């Protein structure tokens, strides 16, 4: 009985919080920006791609853009569709979340085992075909350049300011290797979003586990755990990150794990404080007296009641994870060939010249994303903080 009751109560509370968050215009702006990013990241291959969306060559119609989709592209698309479905369906939040995760997992398994795009991509072929007049009909992506299309067939490419007034048309200019900045930024949105969510997820997981154990058992475990937290807090995070990245390669998954590992200490502190408070309460004592297993007490009974500060911290955490990736890329320790906002920003100040378009656009994207998450986090904090109401009344 108590389970059903608390479930209903907690849902209405979470509804209330969601409504309170949505009432704030700052949070709404932030959510709109993040949604926009998700859409752009999902449909990146259809927005910025050298492969035409549709073309007819010598009477044969084809869609090179679809044929060249990577497994990861399919996973993003599947994740997006499933996400929309999960939002529309009714049901418990955690059930929908679990369903979404399972769906994405299955989609990833299917995609990686079945999709095999051509290994070698020759971006120049379409431009050559067009020059030769062999293409009868062509529908290009709005930005007809891929992120890694360095326009080698033109020969004279390099840094080029936006809309430089030659045959090519780059809205945001080009970077040092000649690739289109707008296209790279669109594809980099994936990295920013992925790093933000997965790194924060990993940090949350570690932090909740360690913090929960510390808060529940206290005593010796607490002392040891707090030393661990202190150790990770006393090493400047950026320095630890630098060390990790410099010594362990530069794959995106590695970076997610590394950012996760280096930023769990704050969450552990929050969870510990909440659990120290909660474990004295009657419902926890009752759960213990019922002889429930430890994981059930910790994660089914205590954690949902200590979620609020964790959620607030997590939404600021996403912002700082994105910032961390951008910083690493900026310092030249990021991904090598893959596009990233920080890496573009790094090219803005070269030895003697200042390329404003490489500072303003990628830097602006980082700023807007971080700002959006901070706005959401702040609205969330105000919504779950009982003091705010009092302060507003007084």
């Amino acid at each position: 009985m108590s389970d059903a009751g608390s479930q209903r109560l907690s849902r209405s509370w979470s509804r209330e919080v969601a409504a309170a968050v949505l009432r704030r215009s700052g949070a709404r702006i932030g959510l709109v920006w993040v949604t926009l990013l998700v859409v752009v990241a999902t449909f990146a291959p259809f927005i910025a791609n050298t492969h035409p969306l549709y073309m007819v060559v010598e009477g044969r119609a084809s869609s090179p853009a679809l044929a060249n989709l990577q497994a990861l592209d399919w996973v993003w698309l599947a994740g997006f569709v499933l996400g929309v479905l999960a939002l529309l369906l009714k049901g418990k939040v955690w059930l929908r979340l679990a369903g979404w995760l399972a769906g994405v997992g299955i989609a990833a398994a299917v995609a990686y085992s079945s999709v095999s795009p051509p290994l070698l991509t020759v971006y120049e072929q379409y431009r050559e075909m067009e020059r030769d007049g062999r293409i009868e009909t062509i529908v290009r992506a709005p930005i007809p350049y891929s992120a890694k299309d360095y326009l080698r067939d033109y020969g004279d490419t390099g840094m080029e300011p936006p809309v430089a007034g030659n045959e090519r048309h780059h809205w945001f200019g080009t970077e040092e290797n000649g690739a289109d900045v707008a296209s790279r930024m669109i594809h980099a949105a994936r990295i920013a979003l992925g790093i933000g969510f997965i790194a924060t997820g990993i940090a949350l997981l570690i932090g909740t586990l360690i913090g929960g154990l510390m808060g529940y058992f206290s005593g010796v475990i607490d002392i040891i755990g707090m030393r661990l937290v202190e150790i990770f807090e006393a090493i400047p995070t950026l320095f630890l990150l630098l060390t990790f990245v410099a010594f362990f390669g530069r794959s995106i998954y590695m970076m997610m794990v590394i950012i996760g590992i280096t930023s769990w200490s704050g969450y552990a502190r929050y969870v510990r404080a909440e659990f120290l408070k909660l474990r004295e309460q009657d419902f926890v004592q009752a759960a213990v007296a019922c002889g429930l297993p430890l994981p059930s007490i910790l994660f089914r009974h205590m954690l949902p009641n200590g979620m609020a500060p964790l959620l607030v911290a997590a939404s600021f955490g996403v912002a700082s994870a994105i910032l961390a990736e951008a910083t690493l890329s900026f310092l030249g320790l990021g991904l090598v060939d893959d596009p990233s906002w920080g890496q573009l920003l790094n090219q803005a100040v070269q030895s003697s010249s200042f390329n404003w378009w490489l500072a303003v656009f990628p830097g602006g994207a980082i700023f807007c994303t971080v700002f959006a998450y901070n706005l959401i986090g702040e609205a969330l904090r105000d919504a779950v903080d009982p003091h705010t109401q009092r302060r507003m009344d007084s």
Partner: protein
Amino acid sequence: MLNYLLRRTLLMIPTLFGITLVVFAVMAASPGGLTVSTLVDGMNLDPEGRQALEDYYNRRYGLDQPAPVQYLRWLNNISPIGFERQADGTLGGFSLWKGVDLGTSFRYGRPVTALIAERLPITLLLNLLSIPLVYGAAIAIGVQAARSHGGRFDVASNLVLLALWSVPTMLAGVLFIGFFASEQYWRWFPTGGVGRREALDQTWLPWFAGFSDVLLLMAAVALVLGVLVWAAVRAPDAVRCPVFLLLGALLGYGMAADLQGLVPGILHVVLAVIGATLLAGIARLPGTALRLALVVPLAIGVGTGLARWAGAEFIQGGYLLDRVWHLVLPVIALSYGGLAFLAKLTRTSLLENLAADYARTARAKGVDEETVLWRHVFRNSLLPLITVSATLLPSLLAGSVIVESIFSINGMGKLAVEAVQMRDRELVLSITLVSGLLTLAGYLLADIAYAMADPRVSYE
């Protein structure tokens, strides 16, 4: 208190031990591990020579031993109590006073102690300049925002501060360098470093061509300062706003003229509008102190510019001016983020205390709002500021990694990046140790300050 201090200092040792262990484990467990290959890579050697050189370095730095042994040796070297180290690398007898040896950097071939002694003061200078700036400005803005709670300034400052907090340091640094230091735009500031080589041989203070130049400079600065301070402090709103608006438009126009000549173009209009908006914003700020704090540096800058334009000549800028000139942009880039965070914190904490029962009691006694704020609430509201001061230092240290690499300042941050890139075991561990020590010292100082500010807290 002494007891507490001693205990805390002793507790630092296991934490420092843990920090270096984590960093060492990361280095040792990585693919590739601890090698000197980065030292050898650049050289043009035949395979045998390369192998021989690598062997030599491995033996010299003890890299041929297993990782745990390497760590233990390093621990032995840095602890003042332990086995003495002989010249040939073997361990000698046990000693209680053998001194601390941080080892030799692979990359530089110099003692790490010397490297750190060279670099640390620069980073500390940056941070020690930033901290008072951050605190002063944050408290001023936070108090003003709390005072006009729910008002226009409160809402606007809240949004602006959150935005400032979200601006990545590297974006700010790149924009500063790009627009205010590069050849293409305004060359007001140097692009990097903390000082010019020549400035070391110059006098401490600026040296003018003649007495008339000094007079001219002082007159120009005094004139601008006088007008602006009067406008900021005494003038009614109806006068202040137009004065600042005009000045902003003029400054914006002047900046555009600097780039594209006096003939008006789009840039002139845009910059004039931006300048006018900014200065009109300053003029409308509530609180004289805030306006004054923004107006005085502006007036000094404009006055100096005016004097230079009118023909006042420095023969030498002098050491002090050169340093200040180099440090303006890095210090701003380092401090605005912390400033935004702390100002928001000050506001929240003040609001919480202003709504507290003791503040209401004071008001009920008939104490006026100013006295309630400054005598009753203010001191109590500082407590969270002291608490976060412990985390401010680590974040500033991290920030200086970015700022130093953007502004090419040879401080600890840049050394750290170079060290991890070169896989320089000794240097990485020592930098970890030093920054960990600084951070823990910051925590300790914050706790002591907390006890001093709040008589309820005692560590007896």
